[in-house]
């Protein structure tokens, strides 16, 4: 078993990225992810990398675009309103197909919101907060260990799909400390090797090839459509290859809760509380939020009377649950928002009330 270290989530995210060969980080202070920006300012240089504290998240995502389109392996991170400022840049990077990992240590919203954990950026992450036809591939780890493993995976997926990948964490994951075993240090792609691995990258044509151009504007509409259709297949492939989820206690479950990230761990405790009062509850934990694991719902048994979305928002993942349920069960939301955490007892009580109170008689609440 590899050696484990006790680490704050935000710092583990940064250290993992460095060990993945990320050598470029551009960030801006925003709670609750400051420790990540601070960690990179102190440790990236030691690994031979470059750090800039940008003038805004808007500048940071564009610095990331510059570094990524010239072949660098990049990490950027922020929290909810900062991620909102990055949306144009993320849409742009999808349009020109450059790899990136972006971490959202999300907090209460909308607007300035609060600085406690939130999951109200689900729509923004999975439906796209920028303009045009594109998708971010979105992972939602529920522990610091899983977040570290996810970041390693995110870089491989980002490079393979040539698409930004978002790791949607939250204030809890960013701030708490847990033992984590970190990946081995991976050497970064050397500057001179970039063209071999990324022939499209901007490195200077050295008078040996036609110049590389990375462009997003298409004044001829057919050309833009052709370009989009050209890379759209990768999203179909992603839908086949990437969906991931965990299912727990589904057999014989009377109700199945659906929850991601740190909220899923609160639901696990609620399941035990419900069991004490004779109600068997199960959990589906989506790990990829886009592409969403709709097939998970086929694992739900005939004993289940309802599905319940447990999230820290007014109910955004509910849309995907309704798609996955496909009318087979009524669905409801049990949630708190604004940065308020929902506790296991409250989850258990409200689910019990839904089941016994007849609120779910055949229709979604």
């Amino acid at each position, binding site marked *: 078993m590899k050696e484990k270290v006790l680490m704050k989530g935000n710092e583990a995210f940064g250290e993992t990225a460095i060990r993945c060969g990320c050598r470029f980080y551009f960030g801006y202070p925003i709670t609750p992810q400051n420790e990540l920006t601070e960690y990179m300012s102190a440790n990236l240089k030691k690994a031979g990398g470059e750090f800039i504290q940008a003038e805004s998240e808007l500048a940071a995502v564009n610095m990331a675009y510059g570094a990524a*389109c010239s072949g660098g392996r990049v990490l950027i991170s922020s929290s909810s309103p900062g991620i909102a400022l990055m949306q144009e840049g993320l849409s742009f990077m999808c349009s020109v197909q450059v790899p990136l990992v972006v971490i959202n240590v999300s907090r209460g919203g909308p607007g300035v919101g609060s600085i406690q954990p939130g999951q109200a950026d689900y729509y923004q992450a999975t439906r796209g907060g920028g303009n045009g036809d594109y998708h971010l591939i979105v992972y939602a780890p529920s522990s610091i260990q899983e977040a570290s493993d996810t970041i390693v995976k995110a870089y491989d997926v980002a490079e393979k799909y040539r698409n930004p990948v978002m790791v949607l964490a939250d204030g809890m994951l960013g701030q708490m400390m847990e033992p984590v075993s970190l990946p081995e240090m991976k050497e970064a792609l050397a500057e001179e090797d970039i063209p071999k691995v990324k022939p499209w990258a901007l490195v200077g044509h*050295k008078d040996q090839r036609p110049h590389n151009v990375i462009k997003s504007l298409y004044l001829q509409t057919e050309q833009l459509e052709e370009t989009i259709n050209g890379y759209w297949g990768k999203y179909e492939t992603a839908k086949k290859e990437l969906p991931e989820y965990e299912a727990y206690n589904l057999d014989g479950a009377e109700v199945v809760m659906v929850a991601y990230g740190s909220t899923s761990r609160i639901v696990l405790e609620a399941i035990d509380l419900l069991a004490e009062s004779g109600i068997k509850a199960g959990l589906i934990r989506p790990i990829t939020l886009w592409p969403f694991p709709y097939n998970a719902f086929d694992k739900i048994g005939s004993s289940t009377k309802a599905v319940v979305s447990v999230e820290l928002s007014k109910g955004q993942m509910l849309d995907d649950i309704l798609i996955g349920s496909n009318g087979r069960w009524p669905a409801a939301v049990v949630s708190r928002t604004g940065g308020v955490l929902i506790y296991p007892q409250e989850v258990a009580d409200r689910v019990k009330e839904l089941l016994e109170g007849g609120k779910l008689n055949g229709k979604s609440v």
Partner: protein
Amino acid sequence: MEKVFEYTRGMLDVKLTYCPGCTHGIAHRLIMETLDERGLLGDAIGVAPIGCSITSHRYLNVDMCESAHGRAPAIASGIKRVHPNAAVFTYQGDGDLASIGTAEIVHAAHRGEKFCTFFINNAIYGMTGGQMAPTTLVGQKTTTTREGRSEAACGKPLRISEMLATISGAVYVERVSLDSPANVRKAKKAVHKAFEVQEKKLGFAFVEMLSTCPTNWGLSPVASLEWLRSNMMQYYPLGVFRNPEEVM
């Protein structure tokens, strides 16, 4: 037969789509001639703005990327971190740089970023059809200042070179003009100096080029050159505002 002037190989053999008499074509040529003469074409990476010259990558024979409006200096900062020895430059108009991109250009100068920015000031938005830019002169008619720009409503035009010259990281700041052969020659010297500053890693190099926009000014190309001389040059004096000793 001795060659006196031939189109630089830094410009690709493609017809430019800019309007007749648009001085973008001159600015493009000067930058590419300079890169060619300094043996940097193969090591150059350019960032095109949002504006008429977003299509400059069709003409400039260097690796290039497009940018979101105003973000070129941030993009160039990212590029320069990956390729510290590349000749990195941004090419931006006054809408891109002096309006939506002011934070990025100020902070690139503030960080002393080691790339060059070539700022095309033609006192108007070209691509979108002639709206007021921050550099539009008081009294100048545009599609959003139909009675002429009013100082009371929209303030006085922004003098970007003077503004950036107050920032220590901007070690070389000069304003030139593309209105005459003599000024075009001086402008080219400034482009050379900007890349010299970058090669010597001294800090941020900035060259503002007074330019014309015949179509949106509603003047002929030649009359536009005259308008530039009698109006823009009065408000935007040419000259060097910051000059590092190492590059005389």
